[in-house]
């Protein structure tokens, strides 16, 4: 049995825009950024802030601290190496799906970071070194490329098996039903290329003002006749009307992340292989109310929303990444995992985002303890293999390294 961790990250702080760190600082602290970074690199300092900020604190600050957990100036290969190390006892031939993230459009300010093309180039080097265990997904954003151009860009990567799926992160500033993604969905459904999307109320988000992303309550959509569009528009209008919610993307970002936003897409592409990561989030599983739920803007329980989508659409998946750190949440969903929907729940950890909760090896063995070896094995290998299988990739086939192969040159004759 070969384990696959379906949800991990290796991107580094260098891939985030310059102002990402600035965002978490008051302006006076701007000139002391290097000093503050130095102190934040200290584990004791991070522990202190985590305690003060709490788990539900400022999303950007916590996300920044996560970058620090992975090493501020490490390369992606080094981040990957550290993760791999954690599995040396659990399963030395474990495969990792590394989800890249396009952070180039998370603000409107200029920045000199490693953009998506640089991030992917670096990832390809890692992949060349670990062809059989490192399976990256390509981070997609409708503001980067649109329509057929986007399809060409992704297809080229998937066809030469450099990348194995598509990653979306809507709270960076777009709706999943953005018309620019229409052609990509059509292609992905046709080729059964898996799509992974972030779907919890927390996480990284757009760092600019709401006016750049939600100028009005009528976002363009690839499925204007969808019966759920009115409900989505009403929700957006509620966010726009609420002064506190519209002031901070950690609130209004929820408008972009809501599970219902995938319904217009699924109505058009019912066989799209779509994984709504994190099973709605541990907070929703445990019934904790988010601020926007308390305010009545968005009262839905996202865990139940995800379950509802899985019941309706046969190719909607979810994973237990990040959520698994909370044993209680994991126990709460055990009956679901054992039921018929459980066939579409995947094992993943969300490394290195989880490092601030527990070391990777602890997290995995604890999860295995709660799920039991059989269920764990099914989720981490059968389900993941099923999910990863596309027209371009068969998870049963092994990769061998590039070095052992001579290129097919007709010139030798």
């Amino acid at each position, binding site marked *: 049995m070969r384990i696959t961790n379906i949800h991990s990250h290796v991107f580094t702080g260098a891939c985030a825009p310059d102002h990402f760190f600035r965002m978490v600082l008051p302006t006076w602290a701007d000139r002391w950024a290097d000093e503050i970074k130095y102190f934040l690199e200290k584990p004791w300092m991070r522990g202190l802030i985590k305690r003060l900020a709490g788990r539900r604190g400022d999303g950007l600050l916590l996300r920044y601290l996560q970058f620090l957990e992975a090493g501020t100036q490490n*390369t992606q290969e080094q981040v990957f190496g550290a993760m791999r190390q954690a599995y040396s006892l659990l399963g030395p031939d474990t495969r990792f799906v590394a989800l890249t993230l396009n952070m180039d459009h998370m603000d409107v300010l200029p920045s000199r970071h490693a953009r998506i093309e*640089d991030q992917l180039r670096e990832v390809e080097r890692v992949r060349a070194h670990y062809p059989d265990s490192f399976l990256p997904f390509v981070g997609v954003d409708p503001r980067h490329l649109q329509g057929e151009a986007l399809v060409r860009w992704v297809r080229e990567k998937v066809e030469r098996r450099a990348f194995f799926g598509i990653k979306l992160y809507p709270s960076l500033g777009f709706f999943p039903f953005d018309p620019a993604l229409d052609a990509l969905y059509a292609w992905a459904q046709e080729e059964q290329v898996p799509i992974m999307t972030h779907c919890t109320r927390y996480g990284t988000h757009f760092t600019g003002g709401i006016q750049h992303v939600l100028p009005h309550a009528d976002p363009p959509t690839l499925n204007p006749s969808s019966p759920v569009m009115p409900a989505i528009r009403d929700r957006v209008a509620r966010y726009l009307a609420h002064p506190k919610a519209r002031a901070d993307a950690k609130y209004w970002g929820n408008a972009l992340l809501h599970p219902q936003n995938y319904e217009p897409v699924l109505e058009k592409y019912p066989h799209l292989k779509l994984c709504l990561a994190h099973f709605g989030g541990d907070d929703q599983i445990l019934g904790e109310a988010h601020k926007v739920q308390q305010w009545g803007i968005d009262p839905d329980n996202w865990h139940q929303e995800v379950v509802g989508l899985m019941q309706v659409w046969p190719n909607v998946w979810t994973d237990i990444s990040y959520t698994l750190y909370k044993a209680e949440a994991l126990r709460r969903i055990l009956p679901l995992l054992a039921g018929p929907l459980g066939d579409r729940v995947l094992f993943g950890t969300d490394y290195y985002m989880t490092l601030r909760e527990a070391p990777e090896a602890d997290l995995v063995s604890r999860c295995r303890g709660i799920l039991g070896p059989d269920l764990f094995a099914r989720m981490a290998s059968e389900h993941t293999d099923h999910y990863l299988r596309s027209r371009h990739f068969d998870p049963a086939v092994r990769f*061998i390294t*590039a070095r052992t192969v001579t*290129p097919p040159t007709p010139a030798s004759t």
Partner: protein
Amino acid sequence: MISAALLTPYLDTIIALVLLYALLSILVSILLEAWNKRIKLRGVFLQKVVYRMLDDPLNHNYGHLIYQHPIINAMRRDGNSYPHYIPAEGFANALIDVLAEQAVTLRYEAREDGTYAGVRMGAEDPLQVRLNKGVDGMAESELKQLFRNFMDRHRSAAGVVDVDGLKLELGRWFDGNMERAGGEYKNDQKHKLVFLGFLVAVGMNVDSLHLTRMFLLDTDLRDRMVAEADAVAERYTAEREALGTDSMATLALMRSMGVRHDGVVTDSLLRIAAQRLDTAERRALADAEAVVEHVRSWQLPLGWNTADAPLSWFCDPRPVQLPEGARPSQRAVLRHLQERNTPKAWSILQWLIGIFITGWSLSQGAPFWFEALVKLINIRRSGVKPQTTDERQHR
């Protein structure tokens, strides 16, 4: 010469203060260097400059890509530091590799034995060819044009690029950029100098107003300081050419002041702290201690002491007895001290102002104060005849 003679005590007081500022500014510079080393600022700064040099929004951030290159990556100490220094040759090699690598695509083909095998398409070409293809394949941009020009200058009649010549040229380009960036690096430090200036002012309780008063009142102290200043200015003038404006020159300046140190920390508390530091920081600590020791040897009215403001405001200041035949100046000193040691709004304000003046002055940097010292000593030598204590007593 009457007016000049009247001015002398004021000029000498200024000289004494400037000498103190010059020495303490060195302390500030040492602290700044050590601190920047600690937060690995040079590495971060270098990375910013390289990213800026090679960022091409239409293609890649080549700065990021060369930092992943084994040549550069191997120069880092750990996951939280960038290399502090990149040799021009390493830069040129990494950049050429990164540009050439653009011509290579990796694809994994299904084979009959049931495996996927990686094939590096285009990797079989020699470096010059890959480099040409890699740059040609870039989207049109300023940086592409720049690279193409570099390559064209080293292209033979047959169109082949001389990689060694190109390397040298890229190295020169890198060095030029680094040189310019050096000045920027210094400008970037102003706010830290202010912070450290105030840190030293408060840490050593250097109250400029109090010192001014004491220099004016205590002629012995003033004369000692002026004699020292004279010697320092002379040595500084002699060594100025060699010092330049490099921040490392502050250490050389110390030598010109006769500050000796053997790199051994003597204070036991500091020694414990030093055990946790690396060699460079330990040296900085020893340097700093040498400066403090030197200031202490002047026996100036500064430092934290229960008999001095501001601590005296909270402790009972012991009444000071004057010797039998006390001179008027000694009485004036006593009066000043008594006034300063009473916690009144006025004395508190004076102390704050005094500290503020020191902090601001120390942030001006050592070179500024040494230049000022030389000018002041020159004025004193040319305009004012030095007065000896004898002459003063004759009046």
